């Protein structure tokens, strides 16, 4: 890379954030994550993650407030040539930061499939989640994502890559009307050696667009360590 591509990415991201943040009812939050991935030589793999969400900008005011800290675990089993079945468990610590919000346990069932077509890697991810909190929310999600090396046809050590994704969400409970949401991500990643990767990107969320829609921007990024 292409330092020039990297600079262009940061410049575009900055311009996008500056422009969009001028609108009403707009929130900017950050969600950094550290994940450890253990890939066994058999068909099993395990993922452990820690993340938190911080409010950075709300009501046209810059601020900093931690919303939650979350621990997650996924156990995955390879199926077929390109697929994986996973079971995930998350615990979201809300009460530590806000008294009126209860902690949340989330159980996830997932099928995902990824395949490389020359330089382009394409992935599909289907999730069904049970968000257990004051009111249990059920959520179905589908994500389509692509990964593209920014130099050559494969991602070598110290090289950058681009990840883009779109995800549709459908949440429902017994008591309330279903909610629809849509998310778009763009991230710049770097292979920092040993299968470890760092990434930084933006996620745009359109929430409850069938009811009282609101939108937000997430600054996403983190470190993924492979063992």
């Amino acid at each position, binding site marked *: 890379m292409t330092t020039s591509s990297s600079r262009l990415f940061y410049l575009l991201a900055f311009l996008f954030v500056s422009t969009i943040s001028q609108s009403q009812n707009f929130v900017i939050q950050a969600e950094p994550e550290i994940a450890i991935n253990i890939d066994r030589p058999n068909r099993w793999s395990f993922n452990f993650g820690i993340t938190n969400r911080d409010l*950075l900008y709300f009501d046209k005011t810059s601020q*900093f407030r931690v919303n939650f800290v979350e621990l997650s675990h*996924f156990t995955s089993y390879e199926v077929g040539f390109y697929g994986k079945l996973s079971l995930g468990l998350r615990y979201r610590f809300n009460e530590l930061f806000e008294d009126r919000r209860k902690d949340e346990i989330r159980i996830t069932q997932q099928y995902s499939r*990824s395949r490389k077509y020359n330089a382009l890697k394409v992935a599909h991810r289907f999730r069904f989640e049970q968000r257990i909190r004051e009111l249990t929310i059920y959520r179905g999600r589908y994500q389509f994502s692509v990964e593209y090396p920014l130099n050559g046809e494969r991602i070598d*050590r110290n090289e950058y890559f681009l990840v883009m994704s779109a995800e549709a969400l459908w949440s429902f409970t017994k008591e309330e009307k279903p909610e629809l949401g849509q998310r778009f991500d763009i991230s710049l*990643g770097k292979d920092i050696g040993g299968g470890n990767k*760092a990434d930084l990107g933006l996620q745009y969320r359109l929430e409850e667009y069938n009811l009282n829609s609101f939108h937000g921007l997430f*600054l996403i*990024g983190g470190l993924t360590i492979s063992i």
Partner: protein
Amino acid sequence: MKHWLLIIILMLPIFASSQDKKIEKEEDIDREEMPERAQEFLLLNIPEDIYKLRHYFETDGEKESYEAKFKFNRHRFSVEFDEDGILEDIEVQVKKKDLKNEILKKIEHYLDTKHDRFKIEKIQAQYLSNKEDPELTMKRAKKFDSNFPDHFELIVATKNKGKLKKYEMLFDAKGNFKNEREIIRNSYDYLIF
């Protein structure tokens, strides 16, 4: 606003770090960075109606090579040169249906006897240039639909007792197995886990 700008700045060192010397490398280059001999060959021999032409430099730490990739007649061509710009081989990506039925059957029969399950992900017809005029190699490759290649190079995903492995396999023009090399999988699939 200052806070998220601060976070961006704090995360930038991650991207600037890891200055270790790389052993394997494959990178985009301009045509002018190819050895002169290779540039001349490409200028004189590649067809006019090609598209998506790109040039690459590749090294495994010891051997260096250059490659030009383009699409011609809806097929991907890879023209590989050594570090002095001498043509090594031309590979043309083909589909199963482009192979003669008896050759495909022979290859699939071999894979069937060696593996519980398999999936052919990619087939390239390989035209070597070691015994002939490089111009003739290009002529043969351009007429890949009517010419026998020297080899077929396959990327094959295999499953044995549920375990997934990928191989680069070489078969001769008649579909006889020659050799194979395991492709080490990237341990972490970034898009899914």
